[in-house]
């Protein structure tokens, strides 16, 4: 066994790196261009965080547009926001939070070599994800029925402005709210669908027994993505559903 002393590019300390032909055979998941499993793992996680940074800027632009229009047309936005079912939105927030819990439990189960628990938690995560999309579908259906979808059939006539009896919201301004609502929640739902695809793949990998206490990096970076999508929803819920709810 050959022991070399070198500094790992992605860690703080110099570590003794043991490399031998035999060790590589025992760790088929360690790619040859990484010094050790820790460095490989940190590189993968770092890559995911850089991707999430681009996602923050991606959603950031939409949040910025929303913020400006909300200040301009506050009363109209409040009236439009009140027409959305906040109880459904709140339920969806709880559903996503539960799915985030099952993701961390799946990773914990992988670390403890508890295969059945890991598979159950991954399946439960996907179940919560599907619940979220189902509830979202009910919400979208309501909006279609009420003609609140921006376009030629859009209608928002004689809708009271909350707190100002006798005053009605400007339909054109309300249409901007609904455009932002559909773009932001739609983009979020698209991320959920991608997340469901990732977790289906993770479930198959877990089923085949690819994850061990030493190696379950795909679970961790898949989890990072899922939690990020959860964080986006944590902001979307109060911003879109709860502008001016008091009677």
């Amino acid at each position, binding site marked *: 066994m050959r022991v070399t002393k070198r500094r790992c590019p992605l860690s703080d300390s110099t570590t003794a790196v043991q490399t031998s032909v035999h060790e590589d055979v025992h760790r088929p998941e360690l790619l040859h261009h990484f010094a050790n499993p820790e460095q490989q793992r940190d590189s993968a996680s770092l890559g995911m965080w850089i991707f999430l940074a681009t996602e923050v800027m991606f959603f950031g632009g939409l949040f910025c547009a929303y913020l400006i229009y909300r200040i301009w047309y506050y009363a109209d936005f409040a009236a439009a926001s009140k027409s959305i079912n906040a109880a459904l939105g709140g339920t969806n927030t709880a559903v996503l939070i539960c799915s985030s819990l099952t993701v961390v439990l799946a990773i914990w189960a992988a670390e403890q070599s508890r295969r059945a628990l890991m598979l159950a938690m991954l399946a439960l995560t996907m179940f919560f994800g599907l619940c979220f999309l189902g509830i979202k579908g009910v919400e979208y259906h309501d909006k279609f029925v009420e003609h609140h979808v921006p376009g030629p059939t859009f209608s928002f006539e004689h809708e009271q402005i909350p707190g100002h009896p006798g005053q009605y919201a400007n339909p054109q301004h309300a249409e901007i709210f609904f455009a932002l609502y559909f773009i932001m929640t739609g983009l979020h739902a698209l991320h959920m669908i991608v997340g469901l695809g990732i977790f289906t793949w993770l479930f198959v990998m877990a089923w085949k027994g690819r994850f061990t206490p030493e190696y379950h990096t795909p679970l961790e970076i898949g989890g990072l993505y899922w*939690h990020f999508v959860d964080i986006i929803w944590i902001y979307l819920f*109060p911003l879109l559903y709860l502008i001016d709810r008091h009677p």
Partner: protein
Amino acid sequence: MSVHATSSPLKTYFAVWVTLLIGTLLTYEVAKIDLGVFNSAVALTIACIKALLVALFFMHLRHASEKLLKVIVISTLFFLFILLSLSMADYATRGGGGHASLLLPHITALIRS
């Protein structure tokens, strides 16, 4: 970040989960009370606390020792801050024609109402 450092005990996970659920209920109930401009402030504060909890405990940022990771997370927040603050500063101070030339009158009207 070693393999063992990232696995928080289950107790923490469940505590964070319960806190997040309480935060959701709280933000939903507070929205029904008329606090004027503070409604938005309270809603955003609760959202930021919830996001921080998810990032620190579920995404394991609390145990991250990787300096490069910290640079990425902090620079992400910094660039988001630039995006929002400079855009708002522009709209708040820019005069001109049109129905929505200035943000400031809208903000002051909101505070007064």
